């Protein structure tokens, strides 16, 4: 009995493999997308940070220090001063024409205030079409203002000695360190999450398409074909799941290991730990997908599911902090493998956590695997019973027709 079961699993596995390679829709989602999309997304964000953001300076002071300020701001890597204007209207027109995205305004009494020992103010006006520009302008302007501040104090302070100068001027120095993604890069932050999501979504779409094709091709439009091998629920589910698992191990290697390496994304996780973590993630995704494929009726309808990708990225807590996600959506997120998957993977891969650090996510993934395995078995059981009933009904109908003919 067990030997039969194992043989059946093997047959189903082989059958599913053949069908996967034959179906061109599934080929796109199982192979083409996991191959190309990670490359595309990493390429889009590959520059990580923006450099030489365009800014225009309105210098109404026209003194040594205001020109020095402009020079130093232009000298930073993040900002490029495209021109210096004489008044705000000219600067505004440049913004309107999108020749620049920010205005640095130095008032006419800038130099006077500096030398008088009064606090001088420069104003920054930023087009908020991109927060990265805002950050670039603000950081550069602040850095230069602190720099020039220090230089000025060298000239003007009279506290007695250089050390006393420093103490009066910076009583409590501070340092900031950006951990794990030290350049605050966009790709390093967002792409690991996107990669995990691509694996999940392609699995769901591919398995959904397979389900749709089966319904189209099978005689009674059920999920399971009529065959003596497809009698047991367990063997059907295991056989199919094994196929997808094996195919996706290869996908994982490309998507999560080779592509990040190619684009120099952070990869500080212990490989064995990441593999141990990915096992329940893949299983949870596969059973999640198989459950969904049981519910969705046609192969085309399965593709609508793709719009949920944007929702899932935000629920996962990578782009919008988890602490700020409303409890209702956090609860919904618990049912989706990508939520713990992304959190755990970012922790392991980018932050160098150990498996015990991501235990919460790890346990959740195994729990999801268990629950979705049960639901998948239930759905397939229902399908197999439905299929049998159809066969019996068809047989009885044929028998009746034959009896009538003979008469």
């Amino acid at each position, binding site marked *: 009995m067990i030997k039969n079961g194992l043989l059946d699993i093997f047959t189903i596995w082989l059958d599913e493999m053949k069908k996967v390679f034959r179906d061109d829709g599934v080929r796109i*989602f199982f192979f083409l*997308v996991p191959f190309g999309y990670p490359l595309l997304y990493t*390429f*889009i*964000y590959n520059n990580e940070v*923006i450099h030489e953001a365009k800014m225009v300076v309105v210098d109404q002071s026209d003194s040594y220090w205001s020109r020095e300020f402009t020079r130093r701001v232009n000298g930073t890597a993040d900002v490029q001063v495209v021109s210096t204007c004489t008044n705000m209207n000219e600067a505004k027109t440049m913004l*309107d024409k999108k020749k620049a995205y920010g205005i640095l305004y130095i008032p006419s009494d800038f130099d006077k205030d*500096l030398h008088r020992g009064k*606090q*001088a*103010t*420069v104003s*920054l006006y*930023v*087009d*908020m*079409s*991109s*927060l*990265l*520009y*805002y950050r670039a302008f603000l950081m550069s302007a*602040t850095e230069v*203002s602190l720099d020039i*501040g220090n230089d000025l104090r060298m000239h003007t302070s009279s506290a007695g000695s250089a050390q006393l100068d420093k103490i*009066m*001027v910076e*009583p*409590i*120095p*501070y*340092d*900031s*360190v*950006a*951990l794990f993604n030290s350049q*605050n890069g*966009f790709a390093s*932050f967002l792409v690991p999450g996107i990669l995990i999501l691509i694996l999940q979504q392609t699995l769901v779409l591919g398995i959904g398409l397979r389900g749709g094709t089966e319904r189209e*091709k099978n005689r009674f439009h059920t999920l399971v074909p009529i065959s003596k091998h497809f009698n047991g629920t367990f063997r059907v589910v295991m056989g199919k799941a094994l196929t997808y698992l094996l195919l996706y191990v290869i996908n994982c290697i490309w998507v999560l290991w080779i592509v990040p390496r190619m684009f120099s994304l*952070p990869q500080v996780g212990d490989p064995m730990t990441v593999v141990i973590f990915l096992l329940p993630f893949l299983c949870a995704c596969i059973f999640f997908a198989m459950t969904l494929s049981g519910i969705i009726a046609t192969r*085309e*309808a399965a*593709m*609508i599911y*793709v*719009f949920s990708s944007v*929702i899932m990225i*935000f629920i996962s*807590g990578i*782009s*919008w*902090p988890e*602490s700020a996600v*409303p409890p209702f*959506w956090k609860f919904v997120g618990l049912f989706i493998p990508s939520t713990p998957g992304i*959190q755990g993977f*970012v*922790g392991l891969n980018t932050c160098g956590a*150990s498996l015990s650090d991501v235990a919460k996510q790890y346990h959740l993934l195994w729990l999801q695997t268990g629950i979705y395995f049960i639901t998948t078995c239930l759905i397939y059981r229902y399908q197999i019973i439905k299929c049998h009933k159809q066969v019996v009904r068809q047989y009885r109908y044929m028998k009746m027709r034959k009896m009538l003919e003979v008469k």
Partner: protein
Amino acid sequence: MTLKEGLHAIEAIFKRELHLLTKTPTFMICIFGAPLICLIFFLSLMKGGLPKDMPIAVVDLDKSALSRNLTRQLDAFEQTRVAFNANSFYEARKELQKGNVYAIFFIPQDFGKDASLGKQPHLSFYTNASYLVAASLLFRDMKTISVLAGASVGLQTGRAKGYTDDQITAALQPIKVDTHAIGNPWMNYSVYLNNTILPGILQVMIFFSTVFAIGSEIKYGSSREWLKMGKGSMLISLLGKLLPQTIAFTAVAFLFAAFLYGYNSFPLNSGWGPMLLALFLLVIAAQAVGIFMISVLPTLRLGLSFACLFGMVSFSIVGFSFPVAGMNPVLQSLADLFPLRHYFLIYVDQALNGRAMIYTWSEYIWLLGFLILPLLVRKNLKNALLYIKYIP
């Protein structure tokens, strides 16, 4: 064919299509279900505009009155919440790696004593930049508290020496940078993201729905009947078929606008006209691209795959999060192939910044230009409608 005959044909196909739309649940999900779910999700997710009370860990090795005061003040900031008081940096780092906190604020031993003695104790803070949004906001708060700590000590010692407050401020911070964020002064993330994400979802759904409508006709073999009703003219057939969807999607788009600019009062510095026009142009441009997709790949499943994949890339390449100017030049030109890109540029200029429409005239032309795409492939589509036999 006279104009009157043409209009009759369009009307007949319109009615047929209405019947098909209401009969198929896929269309209802596509046109109403998915966009509404996304609307509810995104607006409720970012309701506060900025995330509040993000957890950080404080490593306070001093535990003096000054350091405890600092911790309390840091907790009082709106975006920051001191969730974990660690006894060592190792403990705090572990919490950081687990994802329970997003930043660590480190106060060294003898901080209070050293500060009052003038020994320049160092404050340091660490952000987990794998969560960029949280890290940037917490960086701002922690930097402010560090600067304030220095300022308060400096103020005390300066006053003791007999300087005025003005002189002390000038000594501590000779140049102040005063920022004005035009258009979105509250740095509201909902304004920043949702104004492009929601039309983006609509765009994907329109691609999908257009491809699905035309592709289903081919798949189920009813395309000849449809073409016959259109008197053999691609223009009449397509107009009649897609008009119900145009009306439905424009209605949903205007509903989005009502929620974004009406209910949520997001910046609409140009008034309703340009934005409603831009939304309508986005809808018809997306439909045109959808027609192009199914004409180039006349099989339903391939056309839909193209629609999904093209639509999903648009969220990244359009440049509302990472600017297009920062991308590789190849991608900068590729971005123009997406209708959403031009909608985004129109939104930034008109709604966010209140500029005159003349500054974005080229984007409006681009959106209208997408309508030429179906003309280029109409022969291909007509052949597909007449001669293709569906093979599962």
